């Protein structure tokens, strides 16, 4: 269907939805790299105007790709709920989403009438503050060994990576994070080596740490999901099954991932939890995504990176995940050129994930070959905390010594919780109080104050152990 807009006498025409969406996207290096970005700022705005007039029904009638991800998205759609909004335009949906009544509608099931393509279209006509304000009231609560996502909860993944997976190094990093009140979302290691034996050793070490401390949280070793499942078969304790996913069948193939494989993996992990203690819910998947991944494995099929990212969320929500995060800024300047593009993408990803009903977190990060720095990370972190982001990363001193990039630190996470008055997951906060790490909802004076604090922590450990 041809769509066109005339601006000050100049007419811009868009051949199809795919081209219209790509042209309407905010500037992204990956879309320029793919040769599908708007040719001028005028064209970008014209595309946004044309997009605002598109009826939501068109997104169902005109699929962008024919693959198994599109099939999954259509299967997930609540067609009765969709019937009530199909004649709305994208522009009308924006106003509805920003109205105070929307949260109630969304909670009553309207989220299942929204497709990834629709929420990605919507993001294109929203300002940064729109993206923050619309996302903030939407809460998705998930349960594994604790409860994430309640209003006012700002979770933190401890990311205790080590360049050679040294167990003592990993555990000490994790203990340091716990002393900052981090680790309620997950204690999750990216392994440097992906042998099954190595993954089993890490799984066991994290399990023992959580078990010994009686900490109400969950562990994860972020190897390829087939490796985690091989470890499970050999008896390793898997709390959360992790996988990086993309928004097209071709992207997932590039990652060695199939939808059926994910479904079987989820079932295997759920089954294993029946014979273990401490699980209070059946959200057992952890997914990571990021704008540009589809293009990086040449699996985008001509679809822009914001749409591909939203479609990855369409995949994620079919598996009832405990955690999902976009790793915004990880894969380099060819996809998000600088801190301006990273900040925009972080807010878009969070908004789109939330609107689709995901427990959405963000790895606010940058690599050293992109024009970004600690200041720009601080800025996006504070914005996301005000947007009600479910969780962020906690990396010692912000410096991931295995993946060689900078994310948010234990300090950052603790500081932002104090700044916006947010708290850890409720079960975890009670444990922090019990351990003397928190007093009155804040870090105790003794906690996280250098090596001496670790000895105090060890005392608490011993007390617990009796």
């Amino acid at each position: 269907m041809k769509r066109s807009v005339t601006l000050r006498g100049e007419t811009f025409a868009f051949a199809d939805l795919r081209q219209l969406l790509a042209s309407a996207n905010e500037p992204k290096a990956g879309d320029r790299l793919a040769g599908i970005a708007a040719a001028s700022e005028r064209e970008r705005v014209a595309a946004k105007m044309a997009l605002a007039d598109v009826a939501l029904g068109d997104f169902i009638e005109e699929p962008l790709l024919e693959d198994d991800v599109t099939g999954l998205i259509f299967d997930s759609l609540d067609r009765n709920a969709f019937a009530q909004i199909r004649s709305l335009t994208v522009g009308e949906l924006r106003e509805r989403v920003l109205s105070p009544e929307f949260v109630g509608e969304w909670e009553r099931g309207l989220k299942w009438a929204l497709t990834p393509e629709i929420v990605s279209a919507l993001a294109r006509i929203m300002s940064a503050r729109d993206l923050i304000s619309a996302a903030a009231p939407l809460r998705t609560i998930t349960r594994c060994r604790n409860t994430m996502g309640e209003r006012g909860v700002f979770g933190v993944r401890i990311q205790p990576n080590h360049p050679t997976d040294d167990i003592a190094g990993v555990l000490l990093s994790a203990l340091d994070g716990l002393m900052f009140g981090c680790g309620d979302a997950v204690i999750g290691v990216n392994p440097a080596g992906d042998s099954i034996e190595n993954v089993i050793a890490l799984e066991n070490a994290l399990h023992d740490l959580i078990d010994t401390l009686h900490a109400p949280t969950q562990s994860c070793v972020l190897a390829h999901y087939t490796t985690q499942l091989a470890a499970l078969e050999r008896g390793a304790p898997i709390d959360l099954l992790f996988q990086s996913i993309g928004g097209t069948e071709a992207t997932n193939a590039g990652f060695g991932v199939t939808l059926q494989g994910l479904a079987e993996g989820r079932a295997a992990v759920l089954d294993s939890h029946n014979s273990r203690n401490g699980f209070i819910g059946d959200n057992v998947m952890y997914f990571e995504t990021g704008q540009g991944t589809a293009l990086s494995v040449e699996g985008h099929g001509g679809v822009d990176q914001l749409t591909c990212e939203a479609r990855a969320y369409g995949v994620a929500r079919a598996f009832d995940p405990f955690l999902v995060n976009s790793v915004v800024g990880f894969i380099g300047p060819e996809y998000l050129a600088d801190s301006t593009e990273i900040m925009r993408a972080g807010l878009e990803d969070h908004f789109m994930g939330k609107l689709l009903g995901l427990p959405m977190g963000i790895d606010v990060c940058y690599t050293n070959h992109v024009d970004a720095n600690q200041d720009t990370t601080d800025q996006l972190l504070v914005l996301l905390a005000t947007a009600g982001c479910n969780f962020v990363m906690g990396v010692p001193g912000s410096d991931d010594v295995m993946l060689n990039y900078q994310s948010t630190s234990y300090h950052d996470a603790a500081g932002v919780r104090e700044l916006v008055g947010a708290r850890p997951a409720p079960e975890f906060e009670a444990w922090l109080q019990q351990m003397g790490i928190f007093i009155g909802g804040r870090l105790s004076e003794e906690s996280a104050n250098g090596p001496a604090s670790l000895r105090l922590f060890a005392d608490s450990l011993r007390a617990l152990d009796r």
Partner: protein
Amino acid sequence: MSDQLPESIRSAVDVGDEASNVTPARLLIGRAGSAYRTSTQLQLRADHAFARDALRASLSLDASPMSELADRFGLFEVATQAESHEEYLARPDKGRRLASGVAETLRRECPNGIDVQIVIGDGLSPLAVSAQVPAVLSPLIDHATARGWTVGRPFFVRHCRVGVMNDIGDALDAQNVVLLIGERPGLATAESLSAYLAHRPGAGDTDAQRNLVSNIHPSGVSSEDAVRRILGLIDSFMLQGRSGFMVKESAQPTTLPGAGGR
């Protein structure tokens, strides 16, 4: 600490003051309120400055230590389609393709159809290549040859991305390609090398068909361990006739003759 605690946790807690013995991560660094102490704040800025500057370093086969490798192994340089560092950063597609005429050069200069073709790429850290490749290349060639594998003439690819392995595989029809490439500089080190491996790589292959040994640097994976793991992976490739995520690394990698029986 209680004796009932698992050994690994006791040792992690006991290590306390000497955290830097077990990890390069910035642990137990204290705080000012919930912020960094001033020394931490400024050290992070300094380390970022070093990493930024490392990106601009350049590598020449005419200067030490690469010139010694060039003399000894006949190392020569080829180009990708990325013509400048800026284009290399912005256009990964160009860094994944050999420049026009290079495939012919490779077929002329290197033996075709051999078992192991070693390639060196600058990647995002030329410093990693000059710091780590001298200690990896020679033992890798020696041990691969000692196993009876034919090893091709190594060469250097400037403005190199991992995907260029496909063009190299197509040009040389090698059974296995090993690409030693500089990782993007981190704060703790700007000198970390990766080895990407693929069995019979060719057009259309992705990371799903590749294996990786990363973090090769003195406080990460030692050059000796890296060589052992690379050889172990090639063993698995030859045995299984494939590479990629379906091939899992063994935790007991092949012993190197003369490597102290580790």
